[in-house]
């Protein structure tokens, strides 16, 4: 195990590899570009929690002057490296997520009705699209009781984290 793994240069090159791997998964035609609509997914899958606004800013920064609908790797790499090295868009701790659900459930029932969740998610904050909402409900609603046991749902959302 070489000690240069910890040098600044080595850290940057590690970050670069990480970004390249994530980017390549979405570069379906192997021409070092991805669809601009995938940028959010790539950034989030690299462990970041940007708001929609922040995401939009990044995209504006790395987009081509004439909008082509795709983002080039050369443009993405430096911006994303900066994001990761400066630890922007840090993860929100899991307990805060549970607290957030508890806030939506002032009576402390332990569950939410689909309609309640739908109202919060599509009318507040950075509203979900119709598809996003449907997908969320299909994953969150308990098929037998037809309500959302949010503690379980939080567990599912945070489970895969490495």
């Amino acid at each position, binding site marked *: 195990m070489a000690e240069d793994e910890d040098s600044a240069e080595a850290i940057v090159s590690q970050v670069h590899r990480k970004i390249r791997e*994530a980017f390549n998964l979405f570069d379906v*035609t192997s021409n070092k570009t991805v669809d601009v609509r995938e940028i959010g*997914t790539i950034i989030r899958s690299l462990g970041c929690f940007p708001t929609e606004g922040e995401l939009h800013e990044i995209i504006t920064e790395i987009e081509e002057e004439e909008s082509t609908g795709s983002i080039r790797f050369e443009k993405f790499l430096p911006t994303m490296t900066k994001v990761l090295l400066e630890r922007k868009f840090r993860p929100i701790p899991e307990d805060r997520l549970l607290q957030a659900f508890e806030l939506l459930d002032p009576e402390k029932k332990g569950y939410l009705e689909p309609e309640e969740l739908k109202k919060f998610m599509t009318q507040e904050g950075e509203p979900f699209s119709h598809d996003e909402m449907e997908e969320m409900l299909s994953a969150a609603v308990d098929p037998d009781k037809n309500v959302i046991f949010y503690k379980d749902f939080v567990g599912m959302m945070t489970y895969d984290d490495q």
Partner: protein
Amino acid sequence: MKAAILIQRWYRRYIARLEMRRRYTWSIFQSIEYAGEQEQLQLSSFFSFMLDNFTQLNGSGPGDPMNEEGGGARYELIEVCDSYCGPHLSFPLSVSHTNALLSAFKEQQTLHARYVLQLLHETKKFLKQMPNIIHLSTSYSKEITICGDLHGRLDDLLLIFYKNGLPSPENPYVFNGDFVDRGKKSVEIIVILFAFLLLYPDHMHLNRGNHEDHIMNLRYGFTKEVMQKYKNHGRDILKLLQDVFSLLPVATVIDSKVLIVHGGISDMTDLHFLDSIERHKVKSALRLPRRSLDCVVMARGGGQVKGQLGSSRHHPGLSPSMLSPAHLSQVPCLHSFVPTETLPAAPGEEEEWKQIVDLLWSDPKVQNGCTPNTFRGGGCYFGPDVTHSLLQRHGLSLLIRSHQCKQEGYEVCHDGKVITIFSASNYYEEGSNRGAYVKLGPDLTPRFFQYQVSHCTRKLTLHQRVSVAEGSALKALQEKLFAHRSELMNTFQKYDRNNTGWISPSEWAQAVESVLRLDLPWRTLRPRLARLTQDGNVEYLSCFENIYAGQPLPQVTPNLAETLYRYRTDLEIIFNIIDKDHSGLISIEEFRHTWKLFSSHLRVAVEDSAVDDLARSIDFNKDGSIDFNEFLEAFRVVHRLDTKDQQQE
């Protein structure tokens, strides 16, 4: 409100992670699939040689299907006994016959061997008089439906018929190859397709795919399926099918504008030339024409291997950088076994073969140019410029091809000039992809229709779908790791100079890629395949932990066992070739001989005594013959987590 934003951000992050997992799952399936094809093609000269010569050991003489007339199958002599309750056929076929076949297959019935043989016989007779390239035209009253790979998935075919109607003069179809292999209902599919072909010869059209090939069938399951379903007549059926497959047209052209081929084209593709060739001579893309085999043999000792797949200008289908040393097939051992007087191939035969291989095996690529298809090992990658120039040369406007699984069932590339259509949904795994077909009217504007066969009553959530597919992809990958254990350990230990048992993520990723060459996102996969230390380093021994040998045989050295895992599929093919009567048994002597040939071909150093021990240990009942299905079963690896997985489900 802050709580809502927080949940939304978490949820979007969660979905992004899922999407990432879905993507790499797809990459794993695809890489492993193509690596298998590559291996098959690299060993093609060996398999060809085995087919030509090794079968002599059985005393049945050299089996060269090129010279054999498959008409020997005397279906008239086969009696259909009274207890048979499946459908009956009489020729010429009528609609009531195709209806009877469809409902019988829905009821899981099997068609009697006599009728299968007769159907194949009639199909062969019909195909003989068909041209290499079929020309069709559209009209306003009837659009043409084009379907891609079916791969033995009867449910997909039935779903297409349900949604789009049965083939008929008003509803013409083109099926673009790869009817068989992989799925369990390949027999049923070809029976239905051939029956409709005979019923509506002007409205039903079949193109040959790269799986309509008897050597591919040895590896990918169709041979086995036929032998299981037809214990007594399977061999006759397979023999006749070889001819039928080689007689399938290789291309269809609609309104002189739309070219339909299974794989694609190369910069050498010449439709006029293809029009004139004798297509049935190409029994298998994996059998080099005789003269090429000579070249291969003469090229031994460091010379270049000539006559590989792909157009001759490009260097052979295999590029050295893609191969791990064990795969390098310089075919050294073939030399001593090739008969002294080989028949030279007629001039042009090799050219014919190459032209067909390019049609059946190629894939489009984004960059311009034409390069050998190193990923699959055969055919080529053709760029937009190659497409453009072929279309222009022949006054065409569109190329429709299949051959590659697409998540949406279809894909459009090369500025809308190339369409990929793939009709087997859930190809890699339940939920992995949709199937699609495309319809063309006189305006030749393609209209796509997608579908997905579902076996579950309740719709799975995205999370469940991804997890199921990911699980089986990772299993396949773990098996790969296991089969290369000693090579991997050597490489890991080179990085781990202080014997700590762990290496850095990049070292691990480099090591694994250098051995497996699957071009996968190893860093991302790392936590799924190995245990990590607290600071993210990889405890490399742990990647072999969840897997173990199915049946430990004390007489087998670990090295030999690993080799057996790795070449399990290849061995199965070889056994199938030796076992001409498909009895499932080969003699100890044959086993020993084959194994030696094969291991020297692969340059795997295994001591003779180890092979003898192995042969003895697997002759369980000491009768001098080996049941090789049982033998291969012993060399299947088992996942420790299997039982746990089942509990979770």
